[in-house]
């Protein structure tokens, strides 16, 4: 509950709210770009719904990470930003992973895999892409939980709590 109220407090700041909205749109545009570049078909509304969930959770992680970056640890903040972008882009690349997966395949060839290995990955992704996206969402939620915990002492409420402790003493 404390973390939830932290999130609420962060998002009441208009700059963080704007960051959330901008991040959501940028991730969504990146998703559209990826599927259009690969000329992919969105097979089901369900796929589209879960990719939107992933994008929303990634945007929230980005906001929480920015808050931590500004108030607590730069490194933690940067890492949060990376994870946010990584999961949203990775999810976009595999959400429609079926017959054709040119971006993912190119990526796998670049990191040095051969056809046999790439086809194994493509086969894996085509079977488990939706499950993987759910896992990404779950990781995002865990990251959000962690970052909101880290940020607790820097919110207005957190600061008041610390001050009240000090003055009680």
């Amino acid at each position, binding site marked *: 509950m404390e973390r939830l109220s932290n999130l609420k407090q962060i998002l009441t700041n208009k700059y963080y709210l704007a960051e959330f909205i901008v991040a959501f749109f940028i991730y969504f545009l990146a998703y559209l770009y990826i599927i259009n570049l690969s*000329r992919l078909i969105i097979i089901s509304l369900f796929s589209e719904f879960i990719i939107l969930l992933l994008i929303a959770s990634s945007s929230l992680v980005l906001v929480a990470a920015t808050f931590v970056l500004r108030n607590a640890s730069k490194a933690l903040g940067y890492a949060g930003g990376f994870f946010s972008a990584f999961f949203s882009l990775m999810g976009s690349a595999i959400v429609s992973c079926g017959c054709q997966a040119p971006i993912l395949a190119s990526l796998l060839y670049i990191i040095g895999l051969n056809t046999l290995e790439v086809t194994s990955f493509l086969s894996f992704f085509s079977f488990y892409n939706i499950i993987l996206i759910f896992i990404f969402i779950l990781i995002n939620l865990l990251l959000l939980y962690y970052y909101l915990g880290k940020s607790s002492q820097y919110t207005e409420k957190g600061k008041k709590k610390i001050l009240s402790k000090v003055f009680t003493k």
Partner: protein
Amino acid sequence: MSDEKSIQKELKEEKKEEAKIEKTVNSLKVISWSALAIGIIAIIIGVVAVISIPKTSAPGASSAPTSIAPTPIPNVSVNSSLAPIYVNGSLITPPMSLPDAPVITQNQSFGSRLTNINQPFNATELAIINNASNSYFEEAGMMYLNGTINGVGVQPSLSPMLIVNGKPSVIYLGAISCIYCSENKWAMALALSRFGKFNVLFKGYSSFGDLDIPTIYWAPAEYNASSGVDFGNFYNSSYINFISIDYVSPIRAGFEIQSLPYFLSKVQSTGSAPYAAALNLITKLNNFQGTPYSIWGKFVVAGADAVDFGNTITNQPPLPLEYMTHEQVLSQLSNPKDMFALREYAAADLYVAMVCASINNTAPVCSLPAIQKIESINGY
């Protein structure tokens, strides 16, 4: 006094706790910076990957055909030479019917429709593919060249030609469940019909999970099998061979594909040297990006040549092709007036041009002005 002591004790404890937190933060910092470094590398690799995927080739999209510079063809990223591979051996003739995958005659509703699956095309239907007028190819080719038709064409890469029994080969690797393969097969069949004849073609669909698109099967498909591979077809040509490989999985499920080692293990049981050589070539080329994957003489087309699901530009269901019967598709192909049919012919033109370039333009279709222009503009 006791208050002071307890405050000091508390302060000490707080300091201890702070030191502990600092230690944790420091170790987290190392992890975070490492993650950041990995992230930057991953993003760079991602950008390179996006840049390196084959681009749609639409020569007429931005300017008139006469002013278009020939599109350079990227070299295949393989160390092997492009010298032809010669193989002798028999091709695979599949059975005409499968007891485990009978023809379904009930009229079923779109989305879960298997009506006439595995049924051979009748003579009239077969003639629409085999005897399509060259004028349709010419018209669609010119529309592609002047940019009226879009959404057609993938930049091919080079491959060594597989010469089987003295003739170059067209190699196809797909999956019966795959939506893109289903759409692409219409253009493939039209293109192949310019160099030979299909003695039989079969009605098929992509899987229910892949929108149940009406398509052509090269051979009866084991649509109930949990996993398998259908090799072979009923195509004859004096110019080329057609080597077709389709992964089969339950048609009522979603898209499925296996890795190449699975195909390689299955081809052993057929004893066909040309099919084994085709799969070895695909393995060696290192550019497989999913299905459909085809090699047209000396050109690899990784992906569908046209993404054409009816008269639509959207990539979201419902797609018009989902709600068409085979008869309706064939009717449109027999008299191509709308964009869907013309795009199929234009996609076929690109395949035709690739084969023509691979056989030194020896087939009559290669003399069509549109085909010659496509060859020269696309640098085939």
